[in-house]
């Protein structure tokens, strides 16, 4: 048994890039569900918005704007296009998407938003996949080649290994930037939640009519929460696309949304640090089981008839499901949650 590899894999899950993407998206989902009570089952759509908002601007739009033969004949540098892409991916597209989802549903009961978000997420993924828009989205192959500006800033040797040999240069840069963004996100979330604005969100979650009777525009607050949480999702999705150096439709399947949910529920919805802790634990467990099970199989600790190397990938998700079922049974409030607070729901 290669214990070093097992520990490395676990540790990488705990602090690595996967954790960062999903922690960011889960912070957004926490604003939606944990604080405002919005059932968003389409966080993957916001993540795709971040990834494609950036990728489309840099790889599809920019060359056409700069084309000497074209109509615009601009000469915008790739660096500025990256900045524009980031703005589109983090601000413009999520806002449009949230308005699109929110305007028809936020005046209605919570379930309608749930239905619409899950549908919109799939519509977006299938549209991105469609060959019809190949020139814009790269269809099922997705888009690549939009990350050069980002990695140009990396002070690390791309072929060197950093941080206990866990990451190669570019990854380490991404993780460092990711941690900084995550820290910023947590602080921002903490600031807005402990403010009177956050108090109104909680009031809307508890009872919209009560909030309304006290002069709060519940609809507007729900929309603001949907937008802000969507932006967090977009940042997560954009970091993910940069990490993969690829924006690809199948990276934003419904499962992605549910991983975000798992991270949130694991941590405990409605607590500022819950999404971070939840995502860290989720990916640490996945990282651990992956290598641990592989090592078991490789060292013949389990017979091939029980578990083979190719089945490890699936089995670890089964174990995760089992873990979630146990969590729901014994600690439904999540790791950070408050059991007494949770019990108030039943009254």
């Amino acid at each position, binding site marked *: 048994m290669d214990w070093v590899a097992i520990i490395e894999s676990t540790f990488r899950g705990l602090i690595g890039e996967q954790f960062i993407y999903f922690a960011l998206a889960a912070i957004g989902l926490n604003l939606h569900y944990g604080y405002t009570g919005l059932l968003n089952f389409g966080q993957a759509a916001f993540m795709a918005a971040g990834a494609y908002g950036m990728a489309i601007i840099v790889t599809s739009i920019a060359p056409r704007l700069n084309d000497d033969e074209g109509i615009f004949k601009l000469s915008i540098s790739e660096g500025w296009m990256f900045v524009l892409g980031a703005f589109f991916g983090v601000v413009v597209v999520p806002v449009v998407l949230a308005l699109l989802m929110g305007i028809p549903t936020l005046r209605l009961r919570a379930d309608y938003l749930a239905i619409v978000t899950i549908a919109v997420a799939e519509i977006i993924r299938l549209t991105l996949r469609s060959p019809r828009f190949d020139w814009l989205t790269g269809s099922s192959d997705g888009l690549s080649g939009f990350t050069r500006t980002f990695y140009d800033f990396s002070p690390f040797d791309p072929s060197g290994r950093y941080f206990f040999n866990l990451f190669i240069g570019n990854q380490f840069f991404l993780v460092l930037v990711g941690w900084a963004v995550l820290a910023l996100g947590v602080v*921002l979330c903490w*600031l*807005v939640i402990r*403010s*009177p*604005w*956050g*108090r*109104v969100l*909680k*009031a809307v*979650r*508890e*009872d919209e*009519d*009560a*909030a*309304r*009777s*006290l*002069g*709060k*525009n*519940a609809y507007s607050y729900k929309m*603001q929460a949907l937008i*802000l949480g969507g932006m967090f999702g977009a940042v997560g999705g954009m970091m993910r696309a940069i990490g993969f150096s690829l924006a690809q439709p199948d990276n934003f399947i419904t499962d992605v949304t549910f991983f975000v949910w798992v991270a949130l529920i694991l941590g405990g919805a*409605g607590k500022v640090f819950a999404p971070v802790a939840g995502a860290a634990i989720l990916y640490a467990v996945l990282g651990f089981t992956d290598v641990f099970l592989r090592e078991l199989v490789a060292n013949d600790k389990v017979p091939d008839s029980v578990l083979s190397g190719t089945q490890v990938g699936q089995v670890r998700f089964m174990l995760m499901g089992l873990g979630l079922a146990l969590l729901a049974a014994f600690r439904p409030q999540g790791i950070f949650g408050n059991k*007494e*607070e949770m019990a*108030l*729901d039943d*009254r």
Partner: protein
Amino acid sequence: MTDEFADHDELIPDAGPKPGAPHPSHVLPMHDVDVEASRAALADVAWEPGVPKPDPILVADNVVRRYGGLTAVDVDHVEVQRGVITALIGPNGAGKTTLFNLLTNFDTPDSGTRVFDHQPIDKVPAHKIANYGMVRTFQLTKALSKMTVIENMKLGATDQKGESLITSVFPFLWRKQENEIEARADELLVHFKMEHMREEFAGTLSGGQRKLLEMARALMVEPKMVMLDEPMAGVNPALTQSLLGHVTGLRDQGMTVLFVEHDMDMVQEISDWVIVMAEGRIIAEGPPATIGQNQAVVDAYLGSSHDSALDLSGDL
């Protein structure tokens, strides 16, 4: 407002109004309403449905609300006198709560106009009504369970700078106002004798305590008019007297109170004027002591073949 609340506990009577009792001047001027004059003015008002009042704060005309073929509310004209406690009563299904929702804009009438404090409110969305100075409570108490009592209270304050997403990130922009709001909330909690529950989750309170919290929270809005939807429903009898005292206290502060109630004891005890509804219409108005003798009211409650005066001693 808070100063007045802080030191006038002795003014909150245990039960009912104290006619003619002199009010220290600092209790009154909250909304410049002379409570005694307002109440006295009602003596000259005729006892008939839709009668004009000397100083109405809320006026509704031709308010109709239909659900499919059913006309839930069809009120030609109603006025609520400023500075007094008006009870809205009627048998089950009379349309009291529907009218209540229409008057507070929580429901939109099919037709009709409503004027609050000389301003038309027909086009005002429900969440802006509080800014006009009207605040309501709910039949099923809406304490915000997973928020603490003090958070519930602070939520009630209007025009909070920190309630905008942009400013919320900069605490120094709203910290001062927040402290003022918290101080006012604490004074109100002391007044309602709930300060020991300050940090408890509202969901852990009893039914009566939730009613008290809801009322206290409504006062954070600094309303001119308080609309209470069945304030006594689900309240432990031990708390009833204190709750009644608080309702009359609102009036003595210069606020106008309109409440929907089933409990006739409460109606008799604290209201200055009673409006009776049946089948969506207002069928009678008058002072509480005489309303039970009104033939239309008796008919509505007991059926038109009944010929004795209505027994108002029990719950209807």
